[in-house]
């Protein structure tokens, strides 16, 4: 194992993460250099230390005599919280890295993530896995920086400094452990992809989407605080099981540090290191066995070619418009980088369901609280899904947008095709989510209809807003991770989308407030036409903006 090679690969992988454009000035830009991550870590750590210090001052002011203060029981609760937070950090860090890694690392094209290079350069699997894990750990090092920064002043104030040092050391190991876990998942997902693509036919691509969703939900559930609290509660009655859960060993070691049990602390610290080493070994084996260095030839169908018009033409789409719809539809299920966009609402609903159904989270809220709990995801998911799907409509063409430029199809026809698919997907998703939460919340049919009408209006207007942003500011770059929309405009699009949705949802918001406040009276029906009229105005504005943007975009190839 050559440490210089590992360092060189780590730097290359970090650069490929940071340099999301092909700008020739990348080398001169401080924000494109790996050192920016360290600078950000230190800056965030410093800011968190400052906030932690302010909290410490407030603590001293509120409890001048510590536990002996008048409200000493609260002081004790806070001290316990700080101690448990410190003990929990080494368990939290790898989980956070895994979640971030799954969301942001797995959709990177291998040819842009420099991972193909390993196939022809003299680099061993161990060196590559170590470097890749290190780069992932480094990229997400902000997570422990936040927690360690906030807890440092409190740890000093409460004489938990040794515990903090232990948390720091174990967090560093936890970061690397998270990176290694991402490597294992990457190889596993790659295996699933090749297995699915190689053996199965059309329906199997949906299976890949399903597997992707399942992996994220399982991982999220594994590190979901609500679920973890339930697990810890159940474990508290069977504490003997804890030593058999490796991910908790770091926290067990810190607990031993707090208890002054040096032997236990040493044993579990060493076990944490050994567990990480074992994961490295597994990652190397999994990668060696499952990594496909090249895209294999994937046969989709062996049936005889029979061109047909399909039902899209009967819906008023021309031959060219229908072709774009069919092409995009195939891309949804076949392009790994798109899967996460379509998986988001499913994951969103699933995670919301997990939180809702976990005891102690919503169970005690009564019917009014449950009303809001079941209404919120309908509008949020409708908003997010419609915005995301529509905004990526143009950027997802990537470099292949050249095909559209060279085809005899007008910008208005392209927009029609993109609008059709975004509306079809978004309205289907919104309806499905509304039905799921209607059943879950046990609402009346009238409430369901009211929700559905407003959710549909929101979905339509959000599609148009998303198309406007997506057409005006598409991002066709593919490296290292396709973004599809200029990230600055994406950041602007989200609050605009949420604001528009919030205004449209006013009738529902008022209705739910009446329910929670137990105010009797009819739903403010007169607001519904106003909300629909607002949605129509937004839709019309969005469509006009999208149309002029597409015309401008397609007037000349500028990529």
């Amino acid at each position: 194992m050559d440490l210089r090679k590992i360092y060189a690969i780590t730097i290359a992988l970090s650069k490929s993460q940071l340099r999301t454009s092909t700008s020739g000035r990348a080398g001169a830009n401080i924000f494109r250099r790996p050192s920016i991550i360290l600078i950000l870590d230190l800056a965030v750590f410093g800011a968190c230390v400052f906030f932690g210090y302010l909290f410490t001052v407030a603590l001293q002011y509120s409890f001048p005599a510590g536990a002996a203060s008048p409200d000493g029981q609260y002081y004790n609760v806070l001290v316990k919280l700080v101690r448990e937070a410190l003990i929990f950090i080494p368990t939290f860090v790898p989980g956070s890295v895994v979640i971030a890694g799954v969301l942001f690392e797995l959709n990177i094209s291998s040819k842009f993530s420099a991972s193909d290079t390993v196939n022809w350069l003299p680099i061993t699997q161990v060196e590559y896995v170590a470097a890749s894990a290190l780069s992932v750990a480094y990229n997400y090092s902000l997570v422990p920086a936040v927690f360690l920064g906030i807890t440092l002043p409190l740890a000093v104030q409460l004489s938990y400094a040794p515990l903090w040092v232990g948390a720091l050391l174990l967090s560093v190991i936890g970061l690397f452990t998270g990176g290694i876990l991402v490597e294992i998942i990457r190889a596993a997902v790659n295996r699933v992809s090749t297995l699915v693509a190689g053996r199965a036919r059309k329906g199997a691509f949906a299976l890949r989407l399903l597997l992707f969703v399942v992996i994220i939900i399982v991982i999220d559930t594994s590190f979901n605080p609500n679920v973890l609290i339930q697990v810890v509660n159940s474990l508290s009655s069977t504490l003997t099981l804890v030593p058999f859960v490796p991910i908790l060993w770091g926290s067990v070691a810190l607990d031993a540090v707090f208890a002054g049990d040096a032997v236990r602390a040493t044993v579990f610290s060493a076990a944490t290191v050994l567990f990480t080493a074992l994961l490295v070994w597994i990652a190397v084996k999994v990668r060696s066995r499952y990594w496909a260095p090249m895209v294999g030839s994937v046969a989709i169908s062996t049936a005889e070619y029979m061109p047909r018009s399909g039902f899209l033409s009967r819906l008023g789409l021309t031959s060219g418009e229908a072709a774009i719809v069919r092409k995009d539809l195939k891309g949804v299920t076949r392009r790994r980088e798109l899967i996460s966009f379509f998986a988001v609402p499913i994951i969103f609903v699933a995670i919301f369901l997990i939180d809702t159904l976990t005891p102690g989270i919503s169970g005690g809220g009564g019917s009014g609280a449950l009303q809001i709990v079941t209404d919120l995801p309908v509008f949020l998911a409708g908003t997010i899904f419609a915005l995301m799907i529509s905004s990526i409509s143009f950027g997802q063409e990537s470099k292949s947008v050249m095909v559209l430029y060279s085809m005899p199809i007008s910008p208005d026809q392209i927009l029609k095709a993109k609008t059709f698919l975004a509306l079809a997907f978004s309205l289907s998703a919104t309806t499905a989510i509304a039905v799921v939460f209607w059943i879950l919340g046990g609402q009346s049919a009238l409430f369901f209809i009211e929700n559905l009408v407003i959710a549909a209006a929101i979905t339509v207007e959000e599609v148009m807003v998303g198309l406007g942003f997506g057409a005006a500011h598409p991002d066709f770059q593919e490296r290292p991770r396709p973004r599809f929309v200029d990230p600055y405009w994406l950041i602007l699009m989200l609050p605009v989308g949420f604001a528009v949705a919030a205004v449209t949802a006013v009738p529902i918001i008022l209705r739910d407030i009446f329910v929670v406040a137990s105010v009797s009276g009819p739903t403010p029906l007169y607001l519904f036409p106003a909300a629909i009229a607002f949605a129509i105005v937004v839709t019309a504005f969005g469509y006009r903006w999208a149309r002029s943007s597409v015309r401008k975009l397609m007037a000349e190839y500028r990529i």
Partner: protein
Amino acid sequence: MDDFALQATSLSKSFGPTRAVDGISIAMKKGEILGLLGPNGSGKSTTMKLILGILKPDSGSIVVGGIEVTKDPVGVKKIVGYVPETPQTYEFLTGLEYLDFIADMYDIPHEERKARISQFLEGLQMAGHENEMIGGYSQGMKQKIAIIAALMHRPKILVMDEALNGLDPRSAKLVKDLLRNLANEGISVLFSTHVLEIAEALCDDVAIMYQGKVVASGTMADLRSQAGLPGSTLEEVFLKITGTGELDEIVRELSK
């Protein structure tokens, strides 16, 4: 006027401070194969994109098949077949799905498209690979798909940017012979290449571009005459005209 499939006059295009195309004029007769030669970055691909309406000229006019490109780009694209310098396809589609997509774009009748696709796949030895995703194709296979896509709708004018790149010798020969046959039937071909032997063997006329300008044009005999190199090869003429012929010293340095 009616004899010309393409007339570009005083065409200019800049990208920021770079003048990619600098006041060039090109005319291509019906049934003619016009070779566009030039070193990397000389403006060949930009010229082709201007002709197709993918780029807008800063100045000048382009008429393709009697249609002014800036006024009706979609109309021009209907009668032109284009092979870009690197095959830009949708890699998540199979070869067949991509060709079906292209056929839909040109609204080719179902029976005709089925027959055309089948013929081209067989001819270019792609039969058996048509149901594989393009992402798994070799460079040459992608190029073949791009060529089929450009020819499928029976265009009146072909714009082919380095179209023979990556093709195996048999397929390259087939495409060259096909282009000659199509030209004989009245289809015009604008063809760029770095392989001067191909240009010499295939093209009726040649235009040599250098730094955004057409520095020489005409038949092979015209070019030899312009370069003052009678009896020379196109390579010698090309190196002389573009002033890139002083290679001996560089070779000596690199060989050390």
